[in-house]
């Protein structure tokens, strides 16, 4: 623990650790300072020159991201000189910018747009025809699209592949206005965390091929969520909206900062898992592959449960919320059924790594273990109640509670996915997170607990 020192910023007293980065203090204290290249996970690089501040005793403005805090420092961020410096550097950053915001997916969450409104508002001294042309819409691989014209050369993406993934796919080649981000010939961007560069990129140079042109970002609503891709439970932001005459739809998952679990990033598999979540949904009850009414399905389920009393096994999916698992266990005690949660099917050694991917591909497997639920396969019995478990087990009769459609002839009741219900999850390190209901469908599918209540009445 280093020593705390006092410093003055814009006439206010602050305390900070000696030799810590000045820009971090400014960001933490919400003192406005523009920056492109600094990122807490990547450290200071000092190449964009946007974060200029005045430091008393220094001849000229200094970059805050590479300035270490010293005792008695007097920092000014709002003087006329500093404002002029910000405007001038922004003008330089924008000199070769193609100003194609109408076609750019970053528009609405772009640092260049924000800073122009805050610090710029200058008229360009250069025409569109005079601007240096680079390549646009280059597919880098791993669902990342590169537009070299929009790039401000902050090197966040190259530092990500150097420092975080260690795969070194991206680099900056050329000098002056010929400098551009690129990959080696025939060596595409390929690592399981590649799409994080899209979030890291402060401008529209790196955009997601998956999200490309699907929505404008200002039309999206953001809600906190938890990724269900594996037992890591990375914190995510769910970007969704319900457009006029349409249903509530998720358009993308983004990482949400959580220092206890995933830091700033998520893996690409988790990021793209929203697609599977919305496809092939089980929306109506089925019997022998034919749609039946909900009342009839509940009636049929009650009949079966009564018929096979004391001869029933319940199978639980390890992705369900803790509250749902508890409700199922309580229900099992009521009808005298055995509870199983076979975990073997979720193990995928090829998926796991030492960053954010766990080889246990079930979000709430830890709760199954904590609650001492039998993780073996069930013995052959009369009736099986399958609560969304991916495996199929032999039995005389089956009742399925499914989120997504499957080739099934047994009685099937639809249940809501994790975004359509709320509950808590415990990850493999024992950290519990609560996840709220985010998606409100026009015709809501009952949650597992609602269905269970009706069946047990």
């Amino acid at each position, binding site marked *: 623990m280093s020593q705390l020192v006092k410093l003055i910023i814009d006439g206010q007293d602050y305390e900070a650790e000696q030799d810590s980065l000045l820009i971090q203090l400014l960001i933490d204290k919400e003192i406005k300072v523009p920056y492109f290249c600094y990122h807490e996970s990547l450290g200071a690089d000092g190449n964009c020159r946007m974060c200029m501040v005045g430091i008393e005793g220094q001849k000229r403005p200094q970059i805050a991201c590479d300035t270490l805090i010293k005792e008695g420092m007097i920092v000014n961020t709002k003087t006329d000189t500093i404002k002029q410096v910000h405007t001038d550097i922004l003008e330089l950053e924008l000199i070769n910018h193609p100003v194609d*915001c*109408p076609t750019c997916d970053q528009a609405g969450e772009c640092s260049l747009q924000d800073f122009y409104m805050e610090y710029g508002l200058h008229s360009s001294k250069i025409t569109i025809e005079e601007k240096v042309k680079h390549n646009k819409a280059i597919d880098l691989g791993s669902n990342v699209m590169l537009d070299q014209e929009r790039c401000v050369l902050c090197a966040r993406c190259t530092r990500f592949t150097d420092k975080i993934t260690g795969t070194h796919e991206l680099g900056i080649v050329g000098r002056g206005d010929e400098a551009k981000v690129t990959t080696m010939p025939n060596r595409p961007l390929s690592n399981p965390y590649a799409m994080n560069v899209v979030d890291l990129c402060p401008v529209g140079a790196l955009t997601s091929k998956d999200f490309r*042109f699907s929505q404008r970002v200002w039309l999206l609503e953001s809600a906190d969520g938890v990724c269900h891709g594996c037992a890591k439970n990375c914190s995510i932001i769910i970007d969704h909206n319900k457009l006029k005459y349409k249903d509530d739809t998720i358009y993308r998952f983004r990482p949400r900062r959580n220092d206890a679990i995933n830091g700033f990033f998520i893996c690409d598999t988790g990021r793209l898992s929203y697609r599977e979540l919305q496809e092939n949904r089980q929306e109506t009850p089925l019997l022998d592959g034919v749609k039946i009414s909900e009342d009839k399905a509940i009636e049929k389920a009650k009949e079966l449960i009564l018929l096979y009393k004391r001869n029933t096994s319940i199978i639980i999916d390890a992705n369900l919320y803790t509250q749902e698992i508890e409700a199922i266990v309580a229900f099992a005690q009521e009808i005298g059924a055995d509870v199983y949660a076979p975990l073997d099917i979720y193990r995928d050694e090829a998926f796991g790594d030492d960053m954010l991917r766990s080889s246990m591909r079930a979000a709430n497997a830890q709760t199954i273990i904590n609650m001492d639920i039998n993780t073996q396969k069930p013995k052959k019995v009369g009736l099986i109640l399958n609560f969304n478990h991916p495996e199929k087990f032999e039995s005389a009769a089956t009742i399925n509670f499914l989120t997504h459609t499957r080739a099934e002839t047994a009685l099937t009741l639809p249940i809501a996915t994790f975004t359509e219900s709320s509950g808590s999850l415990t990850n493999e390190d024992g950290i519990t997170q609560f996840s709220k209901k985010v998606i409100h469908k026009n015709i809501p599918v009952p949650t597992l607990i609602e269905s269970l209540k009706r069946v047990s009445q």
Partner: protein
Amino acid sequence: MSHNIKITARPERTLKHNLYLPAIYAGFKVTFKHFFTNLNDINAVETLRYPEEQPTDISSRYRGLHRLTHREDGTEACVACFMCATACPSNCIFIEAQEREDGVDEKRPKSFFIDTLECVFCGYCVEACPCDAIRMDTGIFSLTGDKREDFVMDKEMLLSHKGAFGEEVSCARG
């Protein structure tokens, strides 16, 4: 609260005001002036025998039915930036974007619908468009149809409408 209220003195009412007759006289003077002028000369009546007679005073500023403008190569100028849909106060513009493959631009609208029954013809979409791709200069002021669907304009219909005042090609995306 009180500091926001500005008290103005009421004008003093004189006998002239309280009699009302001078004001009534002034009002009827205008009415009867028009009445006798029109009685003498029927052509002075400021009405239009619509639809046989069509209005001649529709200027280039008149907000008629929308149209999508073209580029010089005949394709649509719109790049599906959603500015019009965002600005629209009645949310009657429905766009779906798609990759443009011909190299002219990156993006184009896959579908573009305007529900003219919901539209209030405020012209915000035209104001918002950064590409001069949507205009309301068709001069079309009357819309007819047999069913509601007839009033939902799709991309092809909007592109087929002609401008009534020249400038066929988008000024921003020539």
